């Protein structure tokens, strides 16, 4: 609620600074008073700001793509520096001598035409194609991990609240603190060292990549099975690393709800246990978790970089990491655009749909 008030203030102060023509227009067509339009405009504005910041920041990264590539050529082929430089400069599809600001304008202009550009280190590769190649794997792994951990966390958290102060509760509290505390990449390393290497349950090398080589991507059993097999380790890691916090949040919110009068009354009304657990306790206890859900989606997508590097899973995080290491500015920008939009729009989506779950904050368009 409070953030909405703040948004309202933000809006009014913004409008006061805008040119007169625009304000008369706004008086005539009070679009800025439409809640949906306003939050959408804010989301776009945030993404633009992020893009601008990244555009200039990535060019400040130590080392630049030309040097990185020249060094590669020098070590591989043993030609002179000048030769290497000429080759690199001619193969790059941006003009290193153009001013930064012109490059920025070009970039934004292209984006407005829905063109994310091409990679500067491997010319001709369209970034949109690269993203389409890598992103689905990450969405698959992160999405399933997220779903499993959310559902499991809710069930376990509720049982902890129902059996409060029992041995079960204490054991699970301890376990969930453990799950929360251990960072996700540490889980990844533990999985490799323990079951992978020491106990030899599976072949760490064979689990790399996104599917077994030689299979044709498509809706065939072999490919899908292989894709699941390869995603299994990242999925398990995401589940282990996020399960604990879902459990604890759900436990504390269920504990709160169980003390609420309406649950007591529902029992006195002779409702069936299953109905009370789902519609009365579960639904109310889950409300605060949905707010966290959107924030953690962004966080988990971002943390994919480390997990995918550890398991050598060729997803979006791997793509981003590669782009960072070779200082492929345009690819980094493309990846950031995707990550930021995911974060901003999942938040927006959560904000807008929260009212569907909780009638008390249903938005009436005006507010």
């Amino acid at each position, binding site marked *: 609620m*409070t*953030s909405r008030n*703040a948004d309202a*203030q*933000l809006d009014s*102060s913004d409008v006061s600074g805008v040119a007169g023509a625009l304000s008369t227009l706004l008086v005539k067509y009070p679009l800025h008073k439409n809640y949906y339009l306003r939050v959408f405009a804010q989301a776009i504005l*945030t*993404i633009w*700001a*992020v893009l601008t*910041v*990244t555009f200039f*920041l*990535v060019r*400040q*990264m*130590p*080392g630049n793509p030309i040097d990185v590539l020249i060094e590669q050529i020098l070590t591989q082929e043993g030609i002179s520096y000048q030769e290497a430089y000429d080759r690199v400069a001619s193969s790059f599809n941006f003009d290193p001598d153009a001013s930064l600001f012109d490059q920025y304008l070009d970039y934004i202009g292209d984006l407005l035409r829905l063109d994310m550009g091409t990679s500067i280190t491997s010319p001709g590769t369209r970034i949109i194609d690269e993203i389409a190649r890598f992103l689905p794997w990450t969405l698959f792994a992160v999405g399933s991990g997220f779903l499993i951990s959310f559902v499991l966390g809710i069930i376990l958290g509720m049982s902890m609240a129902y059996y*409060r*102060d029992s041995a079960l509760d*204490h054991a699970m*509290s*301890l376990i969930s*603190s*453990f799950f*929360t*505390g*251990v*960072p996700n*990449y*540490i889980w990844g*390393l*533990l999985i*490799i*060292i323990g079951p992978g*290497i*020491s106990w030899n349950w599976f072949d*760490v090398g064979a689990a790399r990549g996104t599917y077994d080589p030689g299979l044709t991507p498509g809706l065939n059993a072999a490919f899908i099975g292989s894709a699941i097999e390869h995603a299994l380790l990242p999925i398990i890691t995401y589940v282990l690393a996020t399960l604990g916090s879902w459990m*604890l949040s759900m436990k*504390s919110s269920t*504990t*709160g709800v169980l003390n609420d009068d309406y649950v007591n009354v529902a029992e006195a009304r002779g409702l069936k246990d299953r109905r009370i657990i789902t519609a009365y306790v579960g639904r109310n206890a889950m409300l605060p978790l949905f707010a966290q859900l959107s*924030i953690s989606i*962004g966080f988990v997508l*971002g*943390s994919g*970089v*480390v997990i995918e*590097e*550890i398991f050598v899973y060729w997803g979006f995080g791997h793509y*981003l*990491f590669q782009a*960072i290491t070779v200082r492929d500015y345009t690819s*980094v920008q493309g*990846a*950031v655009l995707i*990550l*930021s939009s995911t*974060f*901003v729009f999942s938040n927006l989506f959560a904000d807008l749909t929260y009212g569907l779950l909780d009638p008390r904050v249903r938005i009436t368009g005006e507010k």
Partner: protein
Amino acid sequence: MSSKTLSAPHPLKTLLRLPFTALVAVLGFVNRLRANRAGFIGFLGLLAYFIMTFIMPHFIPFDSEVNLDEIAGPVGSRIQLAVHRDNAALRSFEDLAGKTVGVVDQTGGPSLIAPYADSITIEKYRWTSRRAGPGIRAALVDLANQEIDAMLIFSKTVEEVRADSSDPELQALFAEHVVISNSELGPPHLLGTDTQGRGIATHIVHGGRILILTAVIGGVISTLIALVVGSLSAMIGGAFDAAMTALSNLILAVPRLILLVVLAGLIRFENTLFLGLMIGLLGWPPLMRAIRAQVLSLRERDFVEAARSLGLSTYHIMFREMLPNMISYVMINFIFAITFAMYEQIALLVLGLAPIDDYTWGVMLYFGRSRGTLYNVDGASMALSPVLAIAFFQVCLVLFARALEEIFDPRLRAAV
């Protein structure tokens, strides 16, 4: 307040009493903590970490001596005594008095035998020599031919040389003449050795201090910024509030990794602690939002209304009325901020994206991964030790924070 100022004791007395009051407060706190078993374990764990990373380094030197024959040794590995089959009775340094003992440089041998130089004749072999080939093999040949009576060597390398089937003649020679008479001659490497034969245990002892300090700095900075910006935003409102909210949204929306890599490169710090500063500067938005919301709701509460109607200053209201109500919440989030800062800096180190100056747990992990010992059962300790050190530290912090949460929040306390 007023009654205190009326009967204020002598300042010196207060000062003298201070340590005592502090002790009582700490003991009382520990006592409350003991009721929460998991939290108490976390607290003890943190104490243990403190001792290990801040006190033990003064007594245990960092093992920087490269021992090439102990590469990636398993847990508990130690130097062994190899003798000729006819001399199998030689087991200790005392037994070796008057004998000739071979040691190879760049192994732990020379330093281990140095104290006995008076009684023992030491025959030194170079790690590799153009004439005699690998020093270990040369020494073993001499041992088999009884040119020396014994040699100090690390078990794994002996096994490797003895198992080398490229020269069946040598293999037969060793099998016939060389035996290990004492497999526990040297002090054990508690956690094995890394890819340069250095004791991992000493690295664990030394590798935590900087990380923990960095994480605490990150936590302090982000918590402070969140506290100040959050409460100011809520109290002042208007354009400041709008600007800060927008800024926090922006920081949250930029992928953290990229920001940190860029900033890490920009600053080019000599000191890992700067990383903590960076993490702190980027870590405040979530807590700031929470604090802002809390202050906004506290502002509506009766006691703050009352304070305002009494004409008390904003400063007074914030620090005397509101802060005490939020302090436990802030404390708990401070601990979580530490775990978060720990998480981020180690992620950067593991990916090799942060500058590596200090040999920390994170750097050990990076080398463990990049040098592949992770995939080798014998060498797994190099990656596993820092993994466990980090994991248990984080778990202790979380357990401690959860215990604080339960102690401070009566809603969570067990009923009746």
